[in-house]
């Protein structure tokens, strides 16, 4: 129960900035409605005059605008998913596929109960927050300097649990009778992106208080990832033999890449110098040459020996994905596993990219300073 609460609380913390922003905007909207109501007390000509004057003043000088926003972004850091999902894919193949195959190919000799529960949780979205300072050089064109932060963590809990009795005649050990439980729990992936951005904005006033804008942004992406997991394996057989192993690892890395974005937005000038905006667009954000440390711990025990742990294995290097291909009688397996291989074993690997690209929908608040 505490864990559930803790998890929810962490999730809440992660989006709290975004919620605060929404609350501020709701507050501003209500202030604006009050403000608008006060205007209604005046005559229409008075109002028109006021806006006209305001706009004229605005057009006379360059403007400095502060913008704060939060929003939603689709994400698919595919290399991280590929590397982190390797274990699940491998166990799916090694246990689920194998047992299913034996069960149908040797239906008289192979019986198992049990299955997999849980599945790998991908990072599909995140809630970016950011701010920018815009400097308008004309009525329609503005330049901006901004900063965006995006982060997300996903935790998976996967369990494979089986009771197996095998007496396949065409098998080296012939008779096996065991229970086997494998847990990948927790299996956590997280990303973080820090993006300083420069932007060009082109605005078209649709009415006195409504502005449509297109923008292009570009900048650097400072990306980070973390992948950590605990794998436990336990098997007990009819010969009173049991074995248990625990693997724990944490991989971290960071790298610098680029961020290019484009989109459109609508802004509503709610009060004299405060506007609310909603913007949508696509950001290409990708970092390569991800460098960082890895830590791996392994402990093993069986009925014949006490638990013996390996010394903590730690290393640093450029992260990569290396291909693994296996072939067994129940099928083929191919996967890509994550590792800082180049530093450790000099195995040639595909470069590992941290791709934080995605569609973004942002809403925010702009404050104009004269």
């Amino acid at each position, binding site marked *: 129960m505490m864990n559930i609460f803790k998890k929810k609380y962490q999730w809440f913390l992660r989006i709290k900035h975004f919620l605060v922003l929404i609350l501020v905007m709701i507050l501003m909207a209500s202030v604006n409605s009050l403000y608008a109501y006060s205007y209604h007390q005046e005559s229409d000509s008075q109002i028109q005059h006021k806006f006209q004057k305001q706009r004229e003043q605005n057009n006379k000088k360059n403007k400095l605008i502060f913008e704060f926003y939060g929003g939603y972004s689709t994400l698919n850091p595919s290399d991280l998913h590929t590397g982190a999902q390797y274990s699940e894919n491998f166990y799916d193949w090694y246990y689920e596929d194998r047992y299913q195959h034996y069960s149908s190919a040797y239906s*008289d*000799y192979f019986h198992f109960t049990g299955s997999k529960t849980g599945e790998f949780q991908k990072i599909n979205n995140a809630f970016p927050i950011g701010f920018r300072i815009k400097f308008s050089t004309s009525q329609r064109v503005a330049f901006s300097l901004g900063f965006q932060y995006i982060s997300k963590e996903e935790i998976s809990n996967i369990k494979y649990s089986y009771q197996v009795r095998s*007496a*396949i*005649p*065409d*098998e*080296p*050990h*012939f*008779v096996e009778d065991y229970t086997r439980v494998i847990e990948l729990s927790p299996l956590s992936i997280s990303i973080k992106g820090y993006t300083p951005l420069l932007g060009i904005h082109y605005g078209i006033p649709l009415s006195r208080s409504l502005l449509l804008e297109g923008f292009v942004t570009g900048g650097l992406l400072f990306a980070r990832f973390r992948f950590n997991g605990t794998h436990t394996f336990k098997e007990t*057989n009819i*010969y*009173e*033999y049991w*074995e248990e192993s625990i693997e724990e690892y944490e991989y971290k890395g960071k790298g610098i890449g680029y961020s290019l974005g484009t989109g459109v937005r609508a802004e509503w000038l709610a009060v004299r110098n405060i506007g609310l905006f909603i913007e949508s667009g696509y950001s290409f954000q990708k970092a390569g040459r991800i460098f960082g440390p890895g830590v791996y711990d392994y402990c*093993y025990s*069986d*009925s*014949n*020996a*006490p638990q*013996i742990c*390996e*010394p903590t294995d730690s290393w640093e290097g450029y992260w990569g994905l290396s291909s693994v291909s296996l072939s*067994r*009688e129940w099928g083929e397996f191919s996967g890509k596993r994550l590792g800082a291989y180049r530093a450790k*074993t*000099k*195995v040639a690997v595909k470069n590992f990219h941290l791709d934080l690209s995605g569609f973004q929908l942002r809403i925010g608040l702009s404050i104009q300073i004269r």
Partner: protein
Amino acid sequence: MRFFKYIFFCFLIIFSALSSSNQSVLAEDLEDTTTYSELDQLLAETFRIDIKEITVTFDYYPDDSYAEGKASIIFQMRLGQTIPLIHFDPALRYDSILEIKLNGEHLNFYDTSDIQVVEFEGSTQKAIELQRTLPQNIDHTLEINYRLFLPEDYPRFSPVVHDLQGRGNEERFPTLNSPEELCRHILDFKVHCQKPYVFLGSGLVKKMDSLSTQHWRLETEQEVASYTVMFVLVPEEDFVYEEREINGIPVRMAAFENGDSIDEAFAQLEEWLPELEENLGPFPMPRGLSVFLTSIYGGMEYYGATISSLEALKHEVFHMYFGCSTVGKTYRDTWMDEAINEWYEHSVDPDFYSMSSSYMSNWVGGRSPISVGFDSRAYNEGSHIMQAVAERLGGRQEMIAFLSYLHLNYSFAPFTTFGFLDYLKSYSGIDMKNEFINWLYNGNADYPDYTDSYHELIKKDLRK
């Protein structure tokens, strides 16, 4: 002519005097070296007996899924030991024993004044202790008649050996589950069934004349560890069987009709056996190789035999040199078989790296010398340790030359991990004691002050 006869007679007397003096020197040396080390003492206290010969007659009833065994074990008590024991696990799980006799005296398996089940700290292997005090230096005979219940799923009768888990042939006949306990095995298999059967096994296998049963006799001829003895009985109608000779080595192979290809397996061995012979020496088993080819991945090596899939075949056949002839003294020392085997396979890759000098672990030292099974790190970490040895020796070819020396000189003379280091040092002058103690004993092990190598050389000389 009479003069020459006289000269010849004198020469004979002198020669016999000289040779008897040589023998007495050897006997004295042996006496000196048989002062038991701590390890030998521990092994003696745990295993108690020294088996000379195991004879078992199996009457196998495939239709009823059971076999009856009549086992006779000839043994002597080990130094300082008086109460014998034996390993036979089925008797501990179900009502298996029909009759038990020690030196002709009937014992009651269920009477604790006759039999007790004992355990030893550091091992999960339970032993059947026979509550009788026996004198040393004379042969004793233990006879056990028993029944084995076999799986009903399919009429295959074979061992269920799993060395990694520490399971040996004590699941099939009374013996000692210890790699250092080498003895001759004579196993008779009588199949009580109309269906023709195929038999494959370790060592010399003879089809016996019998009117009422299908009868085979397996003789290991050589003294071997019981867990390396293979036999397989399966219905002939489901199998293909073929015999060929490769490089002068007789190879017998059986596989399921629709299973893995015998031709592919032979093709593998056509290259593999000559390579092994060239690199490591003549094939160690004079009766050749028996292969029970299975389709499902995996395998288990036995003396002159293997039950193996096509993918694992080379690995298992390599074990004929290391694992089935050059053997570890205790289960925890058998990591070397797998390490050498994996090293041989992977070290062809120039990027195969050696174990880091900073690596520290305890996967040999953390296990008791009397425990059964070994640590699975033997395969991966072990192979990198062997690569470190190879690098110290100068490379792959130099390591192979050392392995060949090791195999040719120390086959069937079980040695410990430290024995391996002794042999390495005597062969090359390279001392890797400190590295091995860090890698395998967490930096903390008492290197025995006796030399295994001397000890084993004496044993080997005696065998000759």
